[in-house]
């Protein structure tokens, strides 16, 4: 049977649509695949090669990639390649990575005792552990003696490090916070107009308290000093492949690994431990090492705050537009304006947030409630509150549009059923319409969440920073510090990838962080979708 022309066009269109969809899927999968392979392989320990070069140099490093050396194009020239090697030892050689011509390599081996030491400072050390000392005395010498003792010491040091950190961040942090509060209280007292007797009484109370805190400070500081000196008591003598010796405090070594003697189980354990450190740890070495927990925390908290602000605003505005406002030119104009608001470049919102929230609102709050801290701004500078409000403004059109659609989808007969029972319009709205529209509202929230979690540009001027000294939530009253600056995964990617002093080392971190950002967005969406499906089931309107 001959194919009719219209059938042919139909077939072609179907194939075109399917092909486009397939292409989209491929792109998305490719993106995720790239992020996953580059990001996840970062935590896997590569073998440590000892390379002997023609000029007598010895190099201990991990092989990263091989590439052809660009050539002049003459046909008789043989193709040459070079390898990128992570050599570590930044404190000795100056940089972590080196390109080495393959032709230069005259010998390669994988010595079983070659070690990677992950250090708190200066990145990784590649070399051999020779000796353990304490207070100048030798504790152990030679590979067989050093490693068991080193492993034990490292476990102890990890505990000591945690204790030190707890002391510094916990107790000392609390005292510092209290001292700062007292300083501000003193300042506030000097700004107030009070009878002399009252002023003296209060000033005395303050200085008494100050003396108490100061004493506590001295006490804690002494304890910290003591712990610190114990912390660096034991040292490890290490030697690079070239024979340069160094003495490292064992406390500054996070992990000591012999990659070539690791075995699969050991490598897997190491992988998990590193991945966990990445998720739960704090960044070190200007973000090129350590974890990204503060960035995850900042992102999630900012998005949560944003949802808290945007949900009521968006829903109430949509309810008014759809349920109460009589259709007219004004309503149409408002609707157009709302839709256009969604198309405004996000950096514009950032500028608005800076001008309105930070300078105007924040500045006013500072003058009214925190005059004692001026000229240091409290709310009059970027912070997580202003950032989330700015993003709420950015995403409110999405919520309004989705909510309006959700409300419009509630059948008129459902409203009439309620009204006919004597319910007022508000009761109908509250008990029938809004529950039925809840899935639509949540769809809007999902879109808003996704947009907010991925937004970076406006945040850069309303409170996002490269490295935040403290999380917006901590143990000091009032526990939630909305004025604090915060870290964000999106900005972290930019910062690590493009602003880092050690780009080569940071590259895999960019992928890992991007993967994590996607995971955070996915997780928040997934939760919202689950809630929505639950609501859909609960308020299904299939019979109406």
């Amino acid at each position, binding site marked *: 049977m001959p194919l009719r022309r219209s059938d042919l066009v139909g077939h072609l269109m179907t194939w075109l649509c399917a092909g486009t969809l397939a292409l989209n899927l491929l792109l998305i999968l490719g993106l995720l695949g790239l992020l996953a392979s580059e990001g996840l392989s970062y935590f896997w320990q590569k073998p440590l090669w000892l390379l002997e070069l023609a000029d007598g140099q010895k190099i201990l490093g991990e092989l990263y990639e091989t590439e052809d050396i660009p050539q002049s194009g003459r046909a008789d020239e043989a193709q040459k390649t070079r390898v990128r090697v992570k050599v570590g030892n930044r404190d000795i050689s100056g940089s972590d990575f080196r390109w080495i011509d393959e032709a230069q390599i005259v010998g390669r081996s994988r010595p079983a005792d070659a070690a990677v030491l992950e250090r708190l400072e200066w990145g990784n050390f590649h070399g051999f552990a020779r000796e353990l000392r304490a207070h100048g005395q030798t504790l152990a010498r030679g590979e067989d003696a050093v490693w068991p003792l080193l492993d034990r010491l490292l476990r102890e040091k990890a505990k000591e490090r945690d204790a030190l950190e707890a002391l510094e961040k916990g107790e000392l942090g609390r005292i510092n916070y209290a001292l700062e509060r007292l300083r501000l209280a003193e300042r506030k007292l000097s700004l107030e107009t009070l009878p002399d007797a009252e002023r003296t009484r209060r000033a005395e109370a303050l200085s008494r308290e100050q003396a108490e805190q100061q004493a506590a400070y001295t006490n804690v500081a002494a304890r910290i000093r003591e712990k610190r000196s114990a912390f660096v008591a034991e040292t490890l003598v290490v030697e690079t492949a070239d024979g340069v010796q160094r003495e490292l405090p064992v406390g500054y070594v996070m992990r000591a690994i012999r990659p070539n003697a690791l075995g699969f189980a050991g490598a897997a354990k190491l992988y998990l431990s590193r991945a966990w450190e990445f998720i739960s740890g704090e960044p070190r070495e200007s973000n090129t090492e350590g974890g990204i927990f503060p960035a995850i925390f900042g992102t999630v908290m900012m998005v949560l705050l944003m949802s808290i602000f945007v949900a009521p605003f968006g829903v109430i505005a949509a309810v008014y537009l759809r349920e109460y406002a009589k259709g007219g030119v004004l309503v149409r104009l408002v609707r157009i304006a709302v839709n256009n608001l969604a198309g405004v470049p996000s950096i514009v919102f950032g500028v608005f947030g800076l001008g309105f929230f930070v300078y105007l609102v924040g500045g006013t709050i500072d003058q009214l409630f925190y005059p004692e801290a001026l000229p240091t701004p409290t709310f009059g500078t970027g912070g997580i509150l202003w950032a989330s409000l700015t993003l709420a403004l950015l995403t409110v059109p999405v919520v309004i549009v989705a909510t309006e659609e959700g409300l419009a989808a509630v059948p008129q007969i459902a409203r009439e059923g309620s009204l*006919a029972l004597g319910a007022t319009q508000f009761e109908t709205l509250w008990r029938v319409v809004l529950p039925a529209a809840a899935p639509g509202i949540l769809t809007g929230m999902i879109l808003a969440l996704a947009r907010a979690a991925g937004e970076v540009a406006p945040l850069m001027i309303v409170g996002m920073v490269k490295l935040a000294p403290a999380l917006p939530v901590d143990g000091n009253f009032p526990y939630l510090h909305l004025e604090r600056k915060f870290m964000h995964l999106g900005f972290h990617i930019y910062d690590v990838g493009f602003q880092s002093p050690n780009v080569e080392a940071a590259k895999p971190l960019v992928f890992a962080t991007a993967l994590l950002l996607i995971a955070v967005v996915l997780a928040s969406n997934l939760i919202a979708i689950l809630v929505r499906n639950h609501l859909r089931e609960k308020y299904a309107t299939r019979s109406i």
Partner: protein
Amino acid sequence: MRGAITRLSPKAAGVEILMDDAEAPAPHIDKPVLTTEQLSLWYGSTLALDAITLEIPEKKITAFIGPSGCGKSTLLRCFNRLNDLIDVVRVDGALRFHGVSLYGPEVDVSQLRARIGMVFQKSNPFPKSIFENVAYGCRIHGVTRRSTLAEIVERSLRAAALWEEVKDRLDASALGLSGGQQQRLCIARAIAIEPEVILLDEPCSALDPIATAKIEELMQELKERYTLVVVTHNMQQAARVSDYTAFLYLGRLIEYGETARLFVKPQKKQTEDYITGRFG
């Protein structure tokens, strides 16, 4: 419903109908619950009800019949002012409930709707449990005690002849019920707040004959306590269940009288043509 008058022309129905303007005698009704006097209603510029004057008797079933678009649903929805929801509706003439004007300034529409309940053409239970559906009106009107609510729910479901079928699954979603059960649930929901009048807008049009028979039987029981006004497409149904019947055509009340008389001895040619099935 809008533009109904222009949509349905007698010519289109294929029958020549004479519109005779002589008034048909109105039935004598002792204590009318609802009365309309020269009630006209416009959707924008379209006249949907044209000077309708009738009286609805107490504790009887009054049926409105007529072809699609004749204004019978619109008239019904005037009684609980559900037409207010449409912005372009304009009403003229008098509409009284126990002699009090429904459109008076002092009328509280919510209270009015609590006294004049309604059941819709398509069953519209809320996406809540069976219990909550029936309790909805009571909760709206301030009943919060669970035991009182339970009593009311049981009484209403019994009155709507649904109790035996659902008593074991009151907490199940109302949307799991069959169409006929849902419609009886809607009736239970309406009578839970003890209205005086129940308006039924083609309550059986989406139901099968067995479910329809159940609803009709229920209506007979309900008229002991409530005044019922039912809009129906189905002339047999009107003849079976109602005490009084009003025939509307093109927005006008053509004839109104006791059902027995109207179906046996219609006084207007149009009524006769309609009930004998010559158009409709």
